[in-house]
């Protein structure tokens, strides 16, 4: 591991300044559960590590009925699943927060880090995509907000410029009669990475029981986590019964062309996406309220 300078500024402005000064040679540190592994294992060009955990905006969870939820980019999973408001209104976030790594990892790992690490198998990404979250980003040119499904470019690559920091993930207030759930498959019960994962969100019309809107996020089956528009379109207007869910599962399978790697075969992933689409849709339906 190469030597680096460690700084821990207390404001976003300072971070942006430091990022601009050290263009391309600085890395932001939240929980470090991805970053430290990468610094150790690769020939990194990182000279400056900027710890963002001392910045209050990045450590906040807040909610109001008009704007919904804001999860600071550095909030660790263990804090997320202790939040009553998240537990009550966004159980899918708890689904993801409580499976990342294991207890020790969850005490460090943040959703912001998960999103910015931009792995195809990011569990927090799957949940946040299903919820239609947006990313609040600050850079030298000010603030911009980007829908999370437009954030990723390739494995480990995203739209952040070298002077930008992710401040928070924003989720709209839950619609009435909506539900969501995230389910992944790993060989082990903990300390593992998704072979495939699916996050589902549904909003139904109480009277007709028809699906009004849907988002299905597919994880670890493409270069980045993806929203399956075909599945969402198919769901809209149908009632969330077994037949519909089965059709959604088949469509989800058709929509992907995963790869074989050491964590799973293409055939296994394709099969699992069907199983997990069903299971996460059923979970979402069971949570509609």
């Amino acid at each position, binding site marked *: 591991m190469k030597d680096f300078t460690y700084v821990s500024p207390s404001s976003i402005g300072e971070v942006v300044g430091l990022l601009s000064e050290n263009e391309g040679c600085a890395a932001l540190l939240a929980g470090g559960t991805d970053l430290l592994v990468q610094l150790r294992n690769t020939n990194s060009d990182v000279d400056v590590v900027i710890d963002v955990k001392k910045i209050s905006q990045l450590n906040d969870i807040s909610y109001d009925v008009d704007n919904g939820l804001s999860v600071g980019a550095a909030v660790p999973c263990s804090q997320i699943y202790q939040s009553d408001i998240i537990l009550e209104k966004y159980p899918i976030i708890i689904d993801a927060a409580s499976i990342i790594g294991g207890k020790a990892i969850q005490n460090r790992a943040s959703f912001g880090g998960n999103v910015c690490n931009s792995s195809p198998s990011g569990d927090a990404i799957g949940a946040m995509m299903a919820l239609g979250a947006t990313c609040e980003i600050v850079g030298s040119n000010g603030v911009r907000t980007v829908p999370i499904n437009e954030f990723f470019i390739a494995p480990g690559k995203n739209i952040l410029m070298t002077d930008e920091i992710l401040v928070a993930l924003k989720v709209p207030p839950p619609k009435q009669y909506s539900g969501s759930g995230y389910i992944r498959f790993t060989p082990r019960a903990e300390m593992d990475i998704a072979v495939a994962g699916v996050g589902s969100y549904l909003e139904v019309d109480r009277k007709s029981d028809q699906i009004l809107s849907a988002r299905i996020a597919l994880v670890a089956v493409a270069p980045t986590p993806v929203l399956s528009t075909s599945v969402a379109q198919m769901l809209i207007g149908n009632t969330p019964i077994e037949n519909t869910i089965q059709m959604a599962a088949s469509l989800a399978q058709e929509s992907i062309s995963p790869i074989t790697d050491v964590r799973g075969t293409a*055939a296994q992933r394709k*099969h699992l996406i069907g199983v997990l689409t069903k299971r996460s849709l059923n979970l979402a339906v069971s949570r509609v309220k």
Partner: protein
Amino acid sequence: MNNSMVSMDKHRSVGTRPERIDAKEKVTGSALFGTDIMMPGMLHGRILRSPHAHARIISINTANAESMSGVFAVVTANDLPEADDMKEKLGESTINYKFLRDNNLASDKVLYVGHAVAALAAETPDIAENALELIEVEYEILDPVLDVRESMSTELKILHEQLRTLGSTNDKSTNVAQHIHHVKGDPSLGFDEADVIIEREFITAPVHQSYLEPHAATATWGKDGNLTIYASTQGAFVTRRQVSQLLQYPMSKIKVIPTEVGGAFGGKNPTYVEVPASLLSYKTAKPVRVVMSREEVILGTGPGSGTSIKVKMGAKKSGKITAAQAELCYEAGAYPGSPVDPGSMAIFAAYDIPNGQIDGYDVLVNKPRVAAYRAPGAPQAAFACEQVIDELASSIAMDGIEFRMMNAASEGTERINGKLHKSIAIKEILGIIDDHPHYNEPIQGPYQGRGVAIGFWDNWGARSSVDINVNSDGTVNLISGSVDLTGSRTTVAMQAADVLEIPLEKVKSSMVDTDSISYADTSAGSRTTMATGKAAVEAAYDVIGKLKLEIASLWNVSIDSIRYANGVFSSNKGKDTNMTFQELAGKLSGQVTGHGNVNVEDWAGAGGGTIVDVEVDPDTGQIKILKCTVIQNAGKAIHPGQVEGQMQGGVVQGIGWALYEGYEYDKNGKVLNANLLDYKLPTALDVPNIDAVIIEKPFPSNPYGARGVGETPIISPAPAIANAVQKALGVRLHRLPMTPSRILEEIGITSE
């Protein structure tokens, strides 16, 4: 040697569960492991490893690395003296020093990805790491052979041109280092008599011991010519022997100090980092520490063998096995020495088989040279045999336990290798399984199944050394040459305390370096509590004998009149003839040291079994272990808590073999999962509560009746799980690990 058993009325510590002597230091993080050793002026050594699975080394240029600032020295195989082409039994396996030398630092060829090529020492770990890139190695890349069956037949992809099959007259280059052949009775006649015959082939992946602590050694080559090595090893003396052979340096000048060991399981018998560290210290005249990374441990040190095993067994409708045959092909890795011999001994050991044939092959492949791994060779063999047994039983519609019972080996049974079983307890174990509530309760739901399997392991005896010094306050210091891997400091002290008839708290028990005590074999083969315990008993008797001499002269009575009971010396001659151990200790005229040097040649194997319930998710192929019971014959559980710990730990590793673990290679021989994320060990959440049932059928040649217990419990979990999966799903898996993707393939949901 005193061969009588210690009478039951003296068992005060033995059979209880005192706190382990090393517990507090370890749980509070203050114990010193190999990686904790620090010395003034110490340099950091790193090893350059081969990126190729098979290549000839054309040249190595170290000049650039040597001239880098902060780098003190670089060494290669050229710095090592030629080694003798000499084989020696060290630990449970045989070592050829020529091959060991090449495995420590490659000379003419690299034979696996991760093979050590050069080592260097630098001021900091980072400088060392970066300097590795400046060592230029020119390779001529050769085709690797990775599959054991392909390797047996290839004439092109030969690892060692000069290698010939041991015991064969064929004078051709080969990758088959040895062919073991045992026959009993008339196998073809036996198969003719059978009503049913089952023949199956099984494949198991190479699996790593995955000790928590990586290999670590710190060497200081003093100006006085004495070499001192702190090493994370399971045998300080076998490490000394290997270093001495590879450096052609006298054993007396090499002191190996064993550190606390963060796991070994057989993998810390061969040297890897000790010799490079020593050479670097010699060249730099500074202490040099070499610590492996996890990736290096996985790539560069010996896993357990991957295997391909064919088993054929025949039985009568009545349930009697008429014949059994096995072909065991074991990967040795880059140099000869797979555990195919113990695997061949273990495969049918639990059964009384009238006609049998075993062919075992020790086969080279371009993978790291294997090392012992807990009951080396036996889990693979049991995975094959115990599934065929299950299939045979169900093909004649007989209960699996009843079938095993009908064919179980017992004392006096002739094994296929011609040896006779000593006192064993296979039938008792089967009886316990049959009566156990776990075996008899109903299965709870769909896709659930229960499996059982048994296993037998021969264990080991060998040499151990213990000295006991008596202090004037009545306490004693017990030192032993055995490295404590499992709590043996405690169990050895318990056995001495009972013979000395003093409380365990009065015994301080330590492991010491190779300068301080006489030779002890490595802590392996489940032998330490049993054999080093025996040495402790000898040493304690020696103390008592010497104390009797002292007291006889103190009281001026004949030594024959002295009795020692309940911690009190007494004599029926003269008056005032009562003295406690402690009182006497304060009155000694000279120093009293008891010596126990034993070479245990009469030891016993141990059988065990596993009952396991699984649930399979038919949609994902995931297997969940719901419940597990492990049964084992301990002879005598010196410390029942530690025996249970060994049983549970063995089962956890067995679950790892069964469901998760295995090296994955690409076609060029590159390991795809050289990290603990993708080389999957079971975590706490993957393992159920494991209920351990100890049975005690004493082995009379041991002072307490103890048998080795450490290895047996890893043998039967994988076949028990496979048998349970068969019950749950109706399909049988012939390949380890039984991963979700393999299950999906087996049940026809996905295809390969």
